[in-house]
């Protein structure tokens, strides 16, 4: 069966890049959720990961570097019926877009956020990203990175995110399930996806990840926030993947009564005369 999300485009991704695997997982997740291309929007910024809307048949908003989240928020508020997914890299999301990342988590709007985290800048050729390890030498940080890395999962948890997960591009079946959970979760869902960069990151290679990642055990209680912090901080010889934290929270859009109990904003009839009554305020 051909996947309805398939696009015949050649990609600009390097052979062996984790982005291919993430795309495979994403298409499968959308297919298994029974969604149709017109029901889904992918927002992205700029970078190799951010080219995703060009390689999968759904609606796409390929915006500016670091600015993938704000349009996604606007889209979801305008049309609550759209499934909104954000795909971008670690530099785009945690660097240039850091402020939007923080405040979109606080908003808890219903979007799924898949960060392709290869711990390096790809498209600009090998500079350190906010998740590159301290001391790691890059094409720009010739003596090694001098600033400590950002831990996106801990940051998200501390900001009150209701869905925090980590995936690995090299474990597609597991990633598909994570993506499905994130897309169906009502609220902001972060999935930080570990992904090898075969050209620019010679430290965090496929083998490096493969030897470290392990599935969270079946009996892991993802509603325990203290435990979640511990798992989110585990990033060394062993790296847990799976849903680290998940609880129900009221979404941002549901706090607008006219969105929650009305049609999507985009479907409202517009009539200038409706506003005429406001003139009375100035009488």
């Amino acid at each position, binding site marked *: 069966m051909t996947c309805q999300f398939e696009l015949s485009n050649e990609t600009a991704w390097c052979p062996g890049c984790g982005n291919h695997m993430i795309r495979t997982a994403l298409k499968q997740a959308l297919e298994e959720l029974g969604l*149709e291309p017109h029901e889904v929007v992918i927002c992205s910024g700029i970078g190799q990961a951010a080219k995703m809307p060009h390689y999968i*048949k759904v609606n796409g908003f390929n915006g*500016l570097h670091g600015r993938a989240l704000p*349009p996604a*928020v*606007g889209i979801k508020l305008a049309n609550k019926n759209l499934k909104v997914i954000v795909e971008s890299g670690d530099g785009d999301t945690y660097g240039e877009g850091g402020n939007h990342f923080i405040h979109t988590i606080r908003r808890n709007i219903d979007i799924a956020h898949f960060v392709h985290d290869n711990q390096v800048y790809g498209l600009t050729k090998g500079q350190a990203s906010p998740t590159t390890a301290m001391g790691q030498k890059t094409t720009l940080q010739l003596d090694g990175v001098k600033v400590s890395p950002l831990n996106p999962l801990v940051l998200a948890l501390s900001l009150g995110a209701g869905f925090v997960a980590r995936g690995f591009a090299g474990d597609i079946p597991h990633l598909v399930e994570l993506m499905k959970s994130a897309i169906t979760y009502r609220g902001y869902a972060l999935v930080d996806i570990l992904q090898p960069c075969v050209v620019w990151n010679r430290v965090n290679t496929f083998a490096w990840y493969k030897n470290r990642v392990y599935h969270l055990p079946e009996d892991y209680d993802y509603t325990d926030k203290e435990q979640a912090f511990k798992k989110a901080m585990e990033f060394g010889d062993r790296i847990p993947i799976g849903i680290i934290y998940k609880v129900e929270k009221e979404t941002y859009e549901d706090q607008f009564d006219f969105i929650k109990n009305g049609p999507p904003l985009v479907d409202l009839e517009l009539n200038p005369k409706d506003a005429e009554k*406001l003139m009375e305020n*100035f009488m």
Partner: protein
Amino acid sequence: MDYSVLVGGEAGQGMDTSAHLLALILKRSGFHVFTRSDYMSRIRGGHNFIQIRFSEKPLYTFSEKVDVIFALNEETIKLHAGRLKPNGVVIADEKTGGDEGILHLPLARTAKELGNSRVANTAGLGAILKYFGLPLEIAENAVIKILGKELSDVNIKALRAGYEMIEPKYNLKVREDEHVLINGNQAVGLGAIAAGCKFYCGYPMTPSTGILTFMASHANEMKIVVDQVEDEVAALNMALGASYAGVRAMTGSSGGGFALMVEALSLAGMIEVPVVLINVQRPGPATGFPTRTEQGDLRFMIHAGHGEFPRMVIALRDPEDAFYQTARAFNIAEKYQVPVLLMSDQHLADSMTTKKPFDFGRIKIERHIAGEEDIAGESYRRYKFTESGVSPRILPGKIPGQVVLVDSDEHDEEGHITESDEIRRKMVNKRLRKFELLKKEVEEPWLIGREKPENLVICWGSTYGAVREAVERLNEEGASVGALVFGDIWPFPTKKLLEEARFAKKIIDVEQNATGQLESLIREQALLQATHKILKYDGRPFSGEEVYLRLKEVL
């Protein structure tokens, strides 16, 4: 008749409320009103004042001279004594210092006796009404509207007590009230709501915050998402997302905030998603004068954004113009899939003036959104090459099987990234063809005063009011003066300018900035040059008198 009252004091003394109340009472008494707010960037202390001018004739500007100074502190008397007309009066509380001749009234004492020290100002308003010989009934209803039912009893008592404190000097007759009292920020918000704006986001920044506040106060009633966002970068990107998904979206800020939106303005040009934004200008550079006025961003608005793309820039001239032009901006944005940039400033934003109630029947909503029938049988191409340059716009999620892809990279017709030189040329041309269409939408400037005058004044935006009064006065005195007041700024309309300039011996540029930005535009676009420039860049607005006097110097 033409009177002015100045209310002055420290921030936090309740002057805004008192001045608003007085303005409303005067409006409801049938007068034309124009207010001017002068306030500092602080919450307590300092010195703020509001001038309330009223007349039987329409007013377009404030007056330098005042008939009454209502001084909430002694500093007000010192600072503004020079503004008082020879037969004017200063009203102040008995404990306020100052020279003899000041009408010292027991305002605070009365308020204390009434059990609420905050109603002293209202007692002062009562005295002012009596001074002009105006009745109390209208005032009492206005108190209920402005201060709410809970506080109205004690304030009405204060009003009555103040009314008994003095003898009338004038005996003004109440007229029929046919107006609304509205400021520029409110009029912009009202225009946006009338146009069906369903998404307004922004980051608080004086003097644009009033729009955000106005929208928020009607958000639930009118089903509008009003969002205070993390920064102005997010604001425009978010508005573009909402617009892409199909709702009419707007954002606003002042110059510094607009500077942060510039990256996304370029995005709007590239992805051809309609959006309306407003810059309520204040003096820059940088933080500048946060609470004061200037027209320093004209060139910035025209040129902001990397790369070349079409846009429309419209300057707002008064609240009525602000209402209709804001509504018009949404239609133009959607018709041509371009950003439309509105320009206001602190003086327009905060000045309340009386206008005939706006005609909502005049507002037309034209969405220009394509349906399934428009793309029948085709796989949708968001950037399909067309003769006009405008590609049919469908909304994501609305047509099964069709997807909408917008891209900040140079893209092909479907919206996919391209590196093709041929597609690049075609896409640039497609986008720029829309600018040719915008030129046909452009409205010529308003002409006030004489047609084909010997002395042609050019100005734009909120200087309209002061220029209008000055020009009318000069013509009454026998001069030959006409003024072109530009609203549409970009594309720049030249037709009327060229017609009027042919007969002018002098062309006088009046602008609220230091470099004469409109004049430079006229040189560039119409190959004309002003013979004189009257520029003001001290953060304070032109009054009609100031423009009159400075024009007189050069005529």
